[in-house]
């Protein structure tokens, strides 16, 4: 880790990712302020998910990514894709216990971990789902379980890739409250990909419009500017006008 600006948690410089010779991201430079909610928006194929993947060091890249940790250094992550084998007998409680107990979960969960799992599920409005296999959860339920996993222990950086996809209204309200809570403490920095522009307006401190490179960055108001609206899919353009 190099010496960085104390007010900035994440510094990305000249980030380039290529696959089969084609640039998925080219020369992206981005600063994410500590304690802020920073949202990435852009059309499909703009490289938003790719950018999050580079932050967790999942894919090779050129350029520099610096994380200026000041606290736990923990990362919470809700990935866009979490494909569960439909015959895999792993329950919600098993999954949440994986990083919360040292003993192999196949030997059973401790009483402490069972209580912890119940608390985490209550936090995302899924009490009582402990024994349900991951494979039978709906898309929205699965994302709430992933969110519960990502929020504990309290992350210093929370990466959310389209976290509200498949959420109903009450789930969306719970999600918003949780992110606002994290923001209020100032200890968690959120970098989120979202297509829900109403949500972005309510939660975001900064917005970066990405289309393989940074198109524009600013407050959520930039979403209403003409050049940005042209870039977005029709559904999102409607949301911006509203």
């Amino acid at each position: 880790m190099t010496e960085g600006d104390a007010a900035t948690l994440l510094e990305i410089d000249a980030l380039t990712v290529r696959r089969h010779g084609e640039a998925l991201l080219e020369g992206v430079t981005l600063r994410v302020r500590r304690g802020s909610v920073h949202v990435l928006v852009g059309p499909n194929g703009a490289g938003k998910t790719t950018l999050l993947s580079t932050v967790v060091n999942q894919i090779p890249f050129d350029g520099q990514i610096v994380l200026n940790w000041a606290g736990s250094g923990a990362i919470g992550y809700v990935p866009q894709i979490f494909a569960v084998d439909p015959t895999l007998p792993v329950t919600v409680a098993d999954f949440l216990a994986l990083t919360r107990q040292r003993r192999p979960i196949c030997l059973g969960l401790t009483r402490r971990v069972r209580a912890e799992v119940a608390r985490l599920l209550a936090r995302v409005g899924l009490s009582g789902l402990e024994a349900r296999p991951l494979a039978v959860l709906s898309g929205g339920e699965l994302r709430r379980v992933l969110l519960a996993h990502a929020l504990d222990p309290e992350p210093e950086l929370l990466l959310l890739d389209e976290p509200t996809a498949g959420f109903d209204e009450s789930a969306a309200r719970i999600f918003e409250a949780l992110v606002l809570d994290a923001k209020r403490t100032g200890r968690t920095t959120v970098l989120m990909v979202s297509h829900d522009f109403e949500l972005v307006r309510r939660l975001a401190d900064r917005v970066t419009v990405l289309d393989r490179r940074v198109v524009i960055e600013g407050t959520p108001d930039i979403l209403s500017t003409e050049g940005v609206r042209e870039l977005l899919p029709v559904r999102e353009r409607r949301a911006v006008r509203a």
Partner: protein
Amino acid sequence: MNAFYTWIGGLALQGFLPSDFQYPFLVRGFLCVLIIAPILGGMSHLVVTRRMAFFSAALGQAAITGVALGLLLGEPLNAPYGGMFGFCLLSTLAMVYVKRHATLPPDTLIGVFHALTLGLGLCLLVALTRQFNVHQVESVLFGSLLTVTDGDLLLLVGIGIFVALMLVRKYNSLLLDSLSPPLARVTGAEPAYLEYFFALLLTLSIVVSLKIIGALLVEALVVVPAAAARNVARGTRSYLIWSVAVAFVAGAGGLGISTRFLVPTGGAVVLAATAMFFLTLMARSMGRRGPA
């Protein structure tokens, strides 16, 4: 060990144990099954979860090539562990390395290794038949209780304890990595390390089980128990218990069939395991059809 076999034999003669146990080689075989069941059963539920069934098949073929190499280099016929372990280790490292660095799908790459080790193994086996009677090599291919020694049993115990301890240390990370490598990474696990680590444990488990199960059939015992367990398990704990139970019943049942009908142990064990698979499949379908 002889005193132990005599004592067990005495219990069998007095009718406290099945009459088969008056023969030391059967007692030894049963002890091997007692150790192999938790090792391969335990490994199998992670093998299936990590989608490494085809990898295990390639490793079984590599073991045949390893045995042939070892024998050609002068290893004793009843303990060709050097060639077997050396070649399997080399194949494992090569398969994992190429899989991680190539852009082709994993099953395609493993198919290439599968073909390579099979072709090489067949050529070496033909060369081997000039020095040994093919029936002497048969026990390695199909498994045989008659060739298992106390040394093999001790090796099995040692490796079994080592594999179990390593799995206990890394089980949760291995499972999380199977579900989502990015999630495993953000919690501090290193997916590349975990992949090599598990492949090496699998190699060790397969190599020490070969004399009982046989090189051609060992892959079945690292896949079928977990496949059967999936038909009935409702959580990770029951998944492990069922995998080990199926491996044990298949092992003990196969042992009985093998001695009664004088068929290769490996074949009998695998037949018993697949029978368990179909039984659990039926149980699952009946459970679904049952009252709500």
